[in-house]
């Protein structure tokens, strides 16, 4: 065996487990999902595996469903409102912690907690805090003279409630990434600006924000991809309800496939495909931005 061939074989041995793994546990499940969305599955044919090919029927069913419009709208509102608040609050905190005061390292570490907690823990805690009769949120509203809100029970508020909880969970991620971005801005820039008489706001607007743009773009796009697919939080807090009031593409897909006694795997998988497509658009945008920054 020639040394070059030997070397190629050794390399293959190191990569092969990953390749096999990706094909078996990523490509194949995704293929199965696509297959589900293109066939007319019932519980019986799901088990027997002889569902007839039905082309775009499942997609047509889904697009004609009265839930589609609201689910799409909620997905977009949930994603963009969550990200806007997570980013703004995360950035403000990053700038704040960049002052390096006493205890700043410890406190910054404590801010990571919401992000590290299992989602079911955060979701059930927020559920109880948002409880209409006995929740602490309504109690606090009461102390400032506001009427109690049916956070999880009223169709007008359910989406807001899950967005609030999701913002809380996402702040640490934004804080950590933006903070690390701030570390790369040379301190001399601020010293020079201060000498020129620039105040704190001027420094933020003219130095911090423009120089942080690449990191901001990455943070926002990653946040977008990950927020689009949020499922646990909404499902545990509201199950997408009441009615469809807080259902997104992710919860609707699950609802169709697993949430009822008569599962509709085909349409559920079709909604999943649509979700992947949207995630992929932003994902590819993210990759492009990242590549351009590295180049």
């Amino acid at each position, binding site marked *: 065996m020639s040394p070059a061939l030997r*070397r190629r074989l*050794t*390399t293959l041995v*190191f*990569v092969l*487990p*990953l390749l096999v*793994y*990706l094909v078996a*546990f*990523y490509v*194949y*499940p*995704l293929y*199965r*999902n696509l297959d589900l969305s293109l066939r007319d599955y019932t519980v019986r044919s799901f*088990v027997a*595996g002889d569902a007839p090919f039905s082309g775009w029927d499942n997609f047509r069913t889904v697009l004609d469903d009265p839930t589609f419009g609201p689910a799409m709208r909620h997905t977009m509102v949930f994603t963009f409102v969550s990200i806007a608040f997570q980013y703004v609050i995360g950035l403000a905190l990053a700038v*704040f*912690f960049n*002052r390096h*005061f*006493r*205890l*700043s390292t410890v*406190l910054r*570490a*404590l801010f*990571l*907690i*919401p*992000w590290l*907690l*299992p989602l*079911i*823990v*955060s979701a*059930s*805690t927020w559920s109880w*805090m948002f409880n209409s009769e*006995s929740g*602490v949120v309504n*109690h606090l509203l*009461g102390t400032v003279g506001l009427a109690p809100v049916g956070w999880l029970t009223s169709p007008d508020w359910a989406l807001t409630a899950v967005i609030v909880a999701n913002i809380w969970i996402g*702040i640490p991620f934004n804080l*950590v990434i933006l903070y690390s971005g701030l570390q790369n801005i040379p301190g001399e820039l601020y010293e020079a600006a201060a000498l020129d008489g620039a105040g704190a706001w001027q420094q933020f607007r003219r130095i911090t924000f423009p120089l942080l743009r690449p990191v901001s773009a990455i943070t926002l796009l*990653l946040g977008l*991809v*990950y927020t689009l697919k949020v*499922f*646990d939080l909404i499902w*545990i807090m509201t199950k997408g309800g009441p009615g469809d009031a807080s259902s997104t593409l992710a919860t609707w*897909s*699950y609802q169709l*496939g*697993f949430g009822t006694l008569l599962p509709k795997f085909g349409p559920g998988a079709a909604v999943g495909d649509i979700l*992947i497509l949207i*995630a992929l658009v932003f*994902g590819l945008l993210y*990759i492009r931005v990242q590549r351009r920054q590295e180049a």
Partner: protein
Amino acid sequence: MKSRGYTLIGLLLTALMLFPVYWMVNVSLTPQQDMRKDPPDLFPLHPTFEGYRAVLDDQLPYLGTSLLIGLGTVAVTLVIAAPAGYALAKLRPRGGGTLGLALLIAQMVPGIVMAMGFYGIFLDLGLLNSWWGLIVADSTIAVPFGVMIFTAFMSGIPGELIAAARIDGAGTWRTFRSVVLPLSRNALVTVSLFGFLWAWSDFVFANTLDGGGSWKPITLGIYKYIGNNNQEWNAIMATAVVASVPAAVLLVLAQRYVAAGVTAGAVKD
């Protein structure tokens, strides 16, 4: 003087941010008869451990299963990701760039889509409701992340060290095991931490693939509590507190690895 003002504001902001966590602990210690008191007790003045007793009585098997699934997921992730990361970093395989791109995209696939695909496959193979089927599914959350962390870290290992090992007569495998892996301790810790935490926290796969199993993880233990007796909130919150222990331990013991993991293109469902 000015710094003290910042510290004060910092303490206030942290308290505000961690209020839900405090509330979880507070409710976990609240006696059942005070649960719907108005106004609610802001401090656990009459703490009870009924909730934690319920955890001991009901939830120990779930906690054990989660521990098993977490450790299994870490093992699978390391075995697949560490050699692949080494290959991508140092052995320059053909198509390495494409593979990196595929891993990046893999992390963007929504969990429910994967769950639905796995459901079909596991149904065919009779793997539904098995704990090791869940390990396989959970590892898909961590493997792409793991490969990327290992690749990034191992790229930083000086080529001379590897060349020196080769001159000493070590083959690629020997070099990997005796030189590269010991040097990659930080990456090993980071990948293990996140792999464990994600498997421990997983709800989507657990609920779809292991909903009827006899070995169910703690996330389903909490979920069942919420569904069955949505009155005993001290028991639910006590379970939530216990389920948060790994996250707390990680934060105390390994904070710098956590921060490193987040910034290294962090991912979480």
